[in-house]
């Protein structure tokens, strides 16, 4: 584990972070989030709460992936978000072959129809010891909006199909103790899922099917089934990138690159 290493010679805060998490030089600072907007009460229906006018994440995954995501991000503006729904709990070192087995990599994520199909195979590679399956038989979407994992989530290959499959299946947030580098980066680049971190071993605190709410602005996870509350690590400057729908959408939105002619 990373904690075995001593980094006295280095800036401690820098260890273990990828560019997109602390992009101070290149990305303009996000505008401050309005706290009051973050405090919307959880909805029993399980949909994602946010400021009026923001298209729920489930809506964007139902349409063609990127254009819809970009539009949703632009419409959302600086909304502070909370995510509410059922959670699906997995263990340590969930690798990309378990998230989306290689036999499905013939699907091209940038093709809208195949994007949808990728989603229907999300987490199909989990061993049969996971008795509750992530996607019910005959379904193409998951009923679990939030995935909770242990350490080193998304290790293995660099396939962007992994965060894409989760996002396409209807996942909004993954909460894990740590991530493999490329999975984290791909999640932010595509804007498909929020890869949130926590120091708490949530995969042992929560059980599949628990109802949870994540308050993004407060970096907090509430398990309504157990009545417990947990602290998450702030998503930082990666948040606005994911909210916009990925690096390209964010760069356009903030004027880093010109908008495409219609």
């Amino acid at each position, binding site marked *: *584990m990373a904690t075995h290493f*001593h980094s006295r010679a*280095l800036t401690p805060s820098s260890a273990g972070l990828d560019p997109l998490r602390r992009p101070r030089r290149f990305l303009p600072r996000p505008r401050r989030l309005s706290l009051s907007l973050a405090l919307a009460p959880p909805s029993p229906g399980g949909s994602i709460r946010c400021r009026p006018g923001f298209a729920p994440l489930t809506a964007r995954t139902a349409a063609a992936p990127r254009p819809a995501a970009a539009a949703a991000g632009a419409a959302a503006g600086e909304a502070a978000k909370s995510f509410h729904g059922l959670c699906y709990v997995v263990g*340590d070192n969930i690798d990309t072959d378990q998230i989306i087995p290689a036999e499905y990599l013939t699907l091209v*994520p940038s093709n809208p129809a195949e994007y949808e199909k990728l989603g229907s195979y999300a987490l199909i590679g989990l061993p049969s010891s996971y008795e509750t399956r992530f996607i019910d038989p005959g379904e193409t979407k998951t009923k679990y909006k939030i995935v909770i994992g242990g350490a080193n989530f998304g290790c293995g290959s660099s*396939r962007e199909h992994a965060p894409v499959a989760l996002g396409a299946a209807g996942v909004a947030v993954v909460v894990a103790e740590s991530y493999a*580098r490329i999975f984290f980066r791909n999640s932010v680049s*595509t804007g498909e899922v929020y890869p949130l971190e926590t120091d708490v071993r949530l995969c042992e605190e929560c059980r599949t099917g628990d109802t949870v709410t994540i308050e993004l602005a407060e970096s907090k996870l509430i398990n309504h089934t157990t009545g417990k509350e947990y602290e998450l690590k702030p998503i930082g400057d990666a948040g606005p990138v994911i909210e916009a729908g990925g690096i390209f959408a964010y760069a356009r939105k903030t004027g880093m690159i010109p908008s495409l002619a219609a």
Partner: protein
Amino acid sequence: MASSAAFSPAAASFAAVKKEFGLSRSVASRPFPSAGKSRKPASKRIVSVMAPQQTERKPAATGSVKNAMTMTEKILARASEKPELSPGENVWVDVDVLMTHDVCGPGSFGIFKKEFGQNAKVWDREKIVIIPDHYIFTTDERANRNVDILRDFCKEQNIKYFYDIKDLSDFKVNPDYKGVCHVALAQEGHCRPGEVLLGTDSHTCTAGAFGQFATGIGNTDAGFVLGAGKILLKVPPTLRFVMDGEMPEYLLAKDLILQIIGEISVSGATYKSMEFVGSTVESLNMEERMTLCNMVVEAGGKNGVVPADSTTFEYLKDKTSKPYEPVYSDEKARFLSEYRFDVSKLEPMVAKPHSPDNRALARECKDVKIDRVYIGSCTGGKTEDFLAAAKVFLASGKKVKVPTFLVPATQKVWMDIYALPVPGSGGKTCSQIFEEAGCDTPTSPSCGACLGGPRDTYARLNEPQVCVSTTNRNFPGRMGHKEGQIYLASPFTAAASALTGYVTDPRDFLQ
């Protein structure tokens, strides 16, 4: 579990030394080359008649440094035109080579076109290398279509390096076709010291064996690089692995990297660079160095590097005409941690199911009955890997007891199997030795069943069997069946296991 494997008492010969300022004898003894001076014989072509450019006189590159840097820091400093860099800094880096393949190419092209425009041109048609290799010899229509998408894009963009395959019935009638991208990149001269190479594949880190920065990226980042030729990277801190001592004749680089991953766990190098130095590393040939760097991603590493030396320059001699400038870690460069090995005391290793850090000695697993052996992939399907396997079969003179599948990484490797004489065999080739041992005939070069792939992939694990494999990952389902069990091992150990039908220490045959 990852954390429990780290620092287990099994690793008596492996000591972790924490230091603020790494000072390694092996690096200190190396003369520090001045910038702009490649050890490669200078090109006969006159490149410039001007006075040396200012960029070649930056303190960071001349040796009169103010702040010492590691190799990885220096490569990224040069590629971002900064005099110096420290771990944690975010920099825009110029990319020397971008590689993609049939699994991630179509998606990357889709993003490139969507974001840069349907008529956009790539940033440099000579710096993009496209290598179909994953799902080639299959009737899967989507897999075949993806190779067609690569071909159309290469034609449209006039991509210089495209290793195409059109006739799937016989790979040999496709002279352009190579096979596994990471091995092909090296064999075709796309790996050069000091450069930045990105690829849409996690094992792109293999190229670090040439003393360059190489790492895997996703489709969206690749889409950006296709249009812009740059990428935003965070400079990683470096872990240094010093391996000294004579390599016993029953060990291969695979044993060393399995030992390291077992020591630091599958996330022990997450976001970090891994630098391999020491007399043992210096004694390794290029393919063995590639094996070492290939699996740094299995420890979570961002990249792996081996300092370029005469072995590197010799390998590159007839492969590239481009000038290159190797860089080396400064004597006082800062390393996050330093690990030291006495390689002479190590024993053949395996990684048990279902994690590459689930380390055990091969002899500790001698009661594990196996169903098959697989020799192939970017990790264990190179010429040296097949020569090693052949050496064990030759020494035993026996036949394999379980089906033994041989998947050469590239067309060149396939030809070597059929042409190169195995030392000490009286002129026999690997193919003859494999045939006498009862192995399956070496098949068409590709990534094959290393990652499962479409259902009709050769040697795919379609049953819940136990397989000893020279590949790189053994997570559940990696080679096809979710309940399959994969023991990762060196080609020596794989061949020895094939001969007994159990996981077997190669010393049973090599001593």
